[in-house]
């Protein structure tokens, strides 16, 4: 093989892939099987003990539930908004409007998190201290459990919808005009037009957007971290926040790695299902 000149051409790629993907993943797998708690001496192979502990802890199931809720609601709301905005702006030539919509995308999630945290703050925030009380909503969103989850979903939707909007807009603009004209000649209403032409022809774009979204939602960390740190209680503690707590508050690197492996498996399976379901047929 070493005599084959072709080998030397793909060696750099192989090395790069090995260094940035295969090695860290392998290391994660090894960590997940190790007893590795920083405050305790010694690092040793411990079999599936980390996984056993993880699957027996209430906070894991709690975080999984929060993650599922967060994933579901943020995704649904995001898709609806992104689709409506893309439909509204598909024929618009106004670059300003489009830029305004895309703006949140270029704001780092940390900054977005802080912005929303201050907006919703019950004592000084524009929304929390001023607008909500004015319409009779006397709630401090961030300090009650369901309010906090709603808040992070709102902030996340605000921050990530533009990405989906861009995917949808590109897909919409790629649908040939003839399809719309043909269906209009066939007497379709605007709603029929959407379900007969637009949505079916956007199928792969929707699948791609969903794929990105699921991975993105499961991995969201910094936005929630700066807004609520997973609280109040465990109300907004998603799996990634649980991982952070396990590693950097409880110093249990092995346990955090086990959680990481579980998340990797879940993400890969859901992505695989979506890929098989939507992309192949499309």
């Amino acid at each position, binding site marked *: 093989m070493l005599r084959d000149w072709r080998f030397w051409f793909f060696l750099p790629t192989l090395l790069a892939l090995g260094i940035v993907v295969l090695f860290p993943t392998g290391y994660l797998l090894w960590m997940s099987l190790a007893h590795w708690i920083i405050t305790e001496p010694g690092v040793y192979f411990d079999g599936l003990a980390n996984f056993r502990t993880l699957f027996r802890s209430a906070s894991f199931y709690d975080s999984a539930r929060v993650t599922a809720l967060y994933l579901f609601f943020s995704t649904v709301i995001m898709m609806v908004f992104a689709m409506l905005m893309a439909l509204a702006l598909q024929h618009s030539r106004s670059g300003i409007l489009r830029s305004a919509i895309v703006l949140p995308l270029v704001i780092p999630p940390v900054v977005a998190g802080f912005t929303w945290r201050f907006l919703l703050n019950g004592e000084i925030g524009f929304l929390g201290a001023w607008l909500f009380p004015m319409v009779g909503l006397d709630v401090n969103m961030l300090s009650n459990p369901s309010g906090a989850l709603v808040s992070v979903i709102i902030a996340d939707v605000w921050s990530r919808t533009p990405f989906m909007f861009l995917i949808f807009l590109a897909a919409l603009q790629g649908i040939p005009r003839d399809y719309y004209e043909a269906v209009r000649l066939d*007497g379709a209403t605007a709603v029929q037009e959407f379900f007969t032409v637009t949505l079916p022809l956007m*199928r792969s774009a929707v699948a791609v957007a969903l794929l990105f979204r699921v991975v993105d939602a499961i991995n969201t960390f910094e936005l929630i971290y700066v807004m609520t740190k997973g609280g109040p209680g465990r109300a907004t503690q998603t799996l990634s926040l649980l991982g952070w707590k396990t590693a950097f508050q409880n110093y249990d690197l092995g346990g955090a790695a086990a959680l990481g492996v579980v998340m990797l498996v879940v993400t890969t399976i859901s992505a695989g299902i979506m890929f098989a379901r939507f992309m192949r047929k499309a």
Partner: protein
Amino acid sequence: MVAIRLQDIRKSYGPVEVIKGVSFEAEQGEFVVFVGPSGCGKSTILRMIAGLEKPDSGEIYFGDDRYTDVPPGKREIGMVFQSYALYPHMSVADNMTVSLRLAGVPKTDRRKRAVEVARMLKLDELLDRKPAELSGGQRQRVAIGRAIVRDPKAFLFDEPLSNLDAALRVETRLEISRLHQQINTTMIYVTHDQTEAMTMADRIVLLDAGQVVQQGTPLELYRNPANLFVATFLGSPKMNVLDVAAVSRDGTTAQLTMAGASHVSVTLPSPETADPKSIGVRPEDTRIVPEGEGVLSGTIISAEHLGSEVLVHTETAAGQIIAKMPPDFSAHAGDTVWVGFNVARAHLFDADGLTINNHARQ
């Protein structure tokens, strides 16, 4: 009975007026072909009939009813697009019956109608396939089927054959003509291909720069073109057009001269007719002849042997001339030959390119 009538239709895109006052009528059951070079506005007119574009001024009538502002879905028109516009995610049957589904027709009735139309177009075996699994010609037929299914008042075809190869184009041309005879519905067909226009049309409407230049049966336009544009647009190969000057006039007889040629004597319709500035002779009225019988001498550039005939291209002092010769005619590039015309069938044009003689009796 008039099926579709356009009355002084105008349309501009920004500062550019693309349709400059087009009026026209299609009789019930007539096959009308709009033909003209790219950008002449023929597709725009078709789209206005379909309701996909709104004219800036003028009226559109279907029968006696004003349809100018009626939305496309209410016009009961079947349109076949150049791209076919078949929905990739639907089967052939679903594609054909979209209009019925949108109108709330139950599934079994839709299927029945799809089978009926598919049989007519020889698509019965393909009903459950997706468009991606069909050949170009089959897709074309599905697109036509989709238009037939809804039993429209008129069919509109927007360059439907341009995505097909030459052999299939000829075959589909015949099929569309046969379909027209079978269902006898008004058809309006847009193309830039003069052969399609000549072979399919009951009536040709020839457009240039947003205006109707001439309309009539294919033979009328071929034999009596109103001007140089029509004369050179219709016919393949193109009509030979040479610049001439009248050297003497005696009533209705004029002696014409052209670069490098002896005089040609032509008859004008009346003594008042303006002097011809150019003469047009179709390749079939042009001959390669023995020296002494010809008008012009020239050099053969190429000879195209088509089997049924030979097209001889010659370079003369007056310009390039194409002559259609019998299949056994032997010609070689570089040969010096003489070119003769059937002057009785020549077309004469004035300084503005308008025809000054016509051939009504032919």
